[in-house]
């Protein structure tokens, strides 16, 4: 019998190949063996000696062919042992005498061979390589790293898709898989609403709101912010959707993203049409898409996505009581005629994006996340008028920790806005949960107090509007966070959407 093994793109030194050849030929019952690169001449040789197979014929120059003619299967398998011995890369279990921090994915697997997920956070130029290693070892990947090229992102996502593995990222900060929060994630009630999001704080906001509305989350799959671009084509959004449609614990699916490329949108709609569960599609700042499928529900705000999903599960929580209306008039009177502007200082990118989407309908705003040229904030240190800053963007975080981890980054910004006589309202988010600072409100309160004092001494009042993205189960003690801000007179919104609406109301 003749059989061929092909090792794709395999580079082994001649000594190894010679050694293998000798060992195989030394097995009793092996009649012939040829181990060579799959060049045309070598393949012709295999043909001439009757060792060619379909696999060897379709191998290419840089592939290694191991062609064996053996008496029977038993002899062949005996010969194969040498292949494993000499050509398989090291992946030994380590004897744990004293735990040493593993330095590679292989090392880590040595300590935890039953792991099924790798969370990768290395500089961008190495991230794809590590992701590939993890995928080749059968692990799902959460890729926290950014600065990965589009080509690499596509490559690893296609690899993941082909292997039936999730590739969450790059630049994916939030996920919750089987009840386990990964990177930045809130602790929420487990339930039957599954999320797939190309947006970290977008996922967090929907998770948190579902929890507040009495619902629960089955899974929250992050895809990374570029997944729905034309280059990537929504690979992981589609895979996440398929996974949730098969997941027995998920009854309603929510997809969250900024509006995708048109072609990608069509693909997603097509796939959504095949799902036998209700799907809520939230394209933030997107237009409603007219379609005939009653199973698909379109919204363009995060709170609305959570509300719709929760309603679809049969939980009908009443809307938040809008007590703030009573005090709006009083608050408006606190501002003088010059104080026409607001400044948003955000840790969460999607929270900033949603606020921007709500407020730009009413005001001229500049932001570092704006797409339109006339709304783009070009100088992040020097601006006037209304401005929303996503402080988690690269221009602010180069060499520094993310503001969700270290909120003190934005404290100097708070003081700067307080000194601007045209600013009446400062809008902020406080993100709780895994990965976030242990006391976001606490670390900021002194500065909020100081800012108010600065404005006061200049004859002005300053209004702070805040939204706490968190739940009563988060480690930062949600009630304490609220109390800290409330005692300082910060106006607290129940959702990110409401916070933006409050600002709109105050300054309209």
């Amino acid at each position, binding site marked *: 019998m003749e059989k061929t093994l092909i090792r794709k793109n395999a580079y082994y030194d001649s000594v190894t*190949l010679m050694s293998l050849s000798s060992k195989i030929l030394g097995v009793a019952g092996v009649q012939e063996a040829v*181990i060579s*690169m799959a060049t045309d001449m070598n393949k012709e040789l295999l043909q*001439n000696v009757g060792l060619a197979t379909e696999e060897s014929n379709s191998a290419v120059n840089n592939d290694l062919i191991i062609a064996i003619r053996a008496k029977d299967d038993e002899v062949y398998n005996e010969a194969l042992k040498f292949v494993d011995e000499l050509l398989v890369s090291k992946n030994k279990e380590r004897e744990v005498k004293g735990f040493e921090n593993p330095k590679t994915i292989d090392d880590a697997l040595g300590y935890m061979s039953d792991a099924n997920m790798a969370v990768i956070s290395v500089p961008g130029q190495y991230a794809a390589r590590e992701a590939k290693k993890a995928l080749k070892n059968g692990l799902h990947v959460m890729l926290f790293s950014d600065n990965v090229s589009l080509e690499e992102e596509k490559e690893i996502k296609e690899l993941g898709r082909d292997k039936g593995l999730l590739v969450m990222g790059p630049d994916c900060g939030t996920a919750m898989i089987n009840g386990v929060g990964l990177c930045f994630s809130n602790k929420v009630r487990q339930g039957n609403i599954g999320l797939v999001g190309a947006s970290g704080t977008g996922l967090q906001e929907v998770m948190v709101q579902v929890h507040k509305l009495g619902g629960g989350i089955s899974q929250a799959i992050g895809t990374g912010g570029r997944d729905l671009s034309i280059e990537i084509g929504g690979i992981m959004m589609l895979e996440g959707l398929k996974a949730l449609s098969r997941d027995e614990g998920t009854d309603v699916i929510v997809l969250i993203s900024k509006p995708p490329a048109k072609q990608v949108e069509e693909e997603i709609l097509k796939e959504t049409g095949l799902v036998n569960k209700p799907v809520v599609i939230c394209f933030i700042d997107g237009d409603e898409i007219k379609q005939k499928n009653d199973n698909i529900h379109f919204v363009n705000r995060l709170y609305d996505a959570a509300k719709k999903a929760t309603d679809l599960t049969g939980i009908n929580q009443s809307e938040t009581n809008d007590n703030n209306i009573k005090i709006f008039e009083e608050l408006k009177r606190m501002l003088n005629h010059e104080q026409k502007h607001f400044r948003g200082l955000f840790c969460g990118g999607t929270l900033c994006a949603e606020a921007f989407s709500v407020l730009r309908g009413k005001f001229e705003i500049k932001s570092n996340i704006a797409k339109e040229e006339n709304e783009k904030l070009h100088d992040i240190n020097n601006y006037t008028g209304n401005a929303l800053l996503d402080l988690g963007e690269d221009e602010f975080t180069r060499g520094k920790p993310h503001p969700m981890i270290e909120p003190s980054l934005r404290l100097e910004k708070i003081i700067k806005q307080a000194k601007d006589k045209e600013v009446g309202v400062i809008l902020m988010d406080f993100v709780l949960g895994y990965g976030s600072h242990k006391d976001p409100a606490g670390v900021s309160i002194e500065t909020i107090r100081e800012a108010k004092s600065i404005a006061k001494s200049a004859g002005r009042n300053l209004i702070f509007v805040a939204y706490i993205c968190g739940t009563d189960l988060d480690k930062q003690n949600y009630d304490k966070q609220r109390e800290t801000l409330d005692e300082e007179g910060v106006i607290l919104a129940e959702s990110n959407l409401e916070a933006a609406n409050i600002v709109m109301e105050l300054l309209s």
Partner: protein
Amino acid sequence: MTENVLKYIELNIISYDEEFVKILNQHQELYNLGKVHSIYTKTINFIDKHHELYTIASENIANGPYFLIINTGGIDLKSIDLEVGDPIKAVGNSILIGTHLKINIVAGSYLWTPKVLNQDSFNMSILRQNISYFNKIIVDKQSICGCKYYYLKSILNINNYKPQIIEKELAKKIGVFLEDIELDNICQESINSLIGLGVGLTPSGDDFLVGFVSVLSIIANNYANTIKKKIISSININVISTTDVSRKMLRIALSGKYGDSIFNFVNALLQNNKKLLNYSLEELLSIGSSSGMDLAIGIIMGIILLMKNKSLGELRYGKDANKKKCLL
């Protein structure tokens, strides 16, 4: 989003060739020069965006075109945590490879250039004597799956060696190739049937041709140049079926370039210096597993061809260009 402090192993560059100078000078800081193609104990190959292959080699490896020689202090390059596909970047006077290797240009790193023969005549009896010495060595040297079977059978008339299939095939095709040259009937078919044939990363047929063509470039008399031109015109390097590394070696040889180990052996064959011959042969035979032997046989067959043609009286001279030049 997360900063990692990377620990690099730092090694110094001993020498580099003009191709490395070109790619380093053309690019800006942290530009991706290319990515790792393959990693071995003593060498790391990388390819640039034009798919040109370069080699970073340890000090045990002789210099050559597209080679950068580094002082490894004996460490196995495979033991450094590098992967195929790792980026190669230029940073100041250093090259970063992946996440763990940094190689530095230091005072004393020099520009390597190919050696050129510097003698005006040959002594035929010295040549024959040296080839006899080579014949003795080859019989004892352990080498399988390469061109050795051809040499033992066809040149030394030794028939007690049991060849593998590939060796038989190689012997047949080398015979046809050499016959075609002697009959002035060089054709694409006989050359191409050698290319890609053989075991290993650089198939034996390719190594044979590299050795053969290199000796023609080193001797560089009229006859050698004529043969070489005919061989070049019969090979379309871009469509031949062989491995990336071997294609690179062939391309270098066909462009008239060669490494130190090839030159040293050819030069030693022309001298009356057994120590030099011994040393240069050892150096050449240490390349790969059968590659060194296959190169040597290619060289010897080239010399034998020129001896048969009686053309070794005509020699092209050149200055020794192997001058050490420090970059810093």
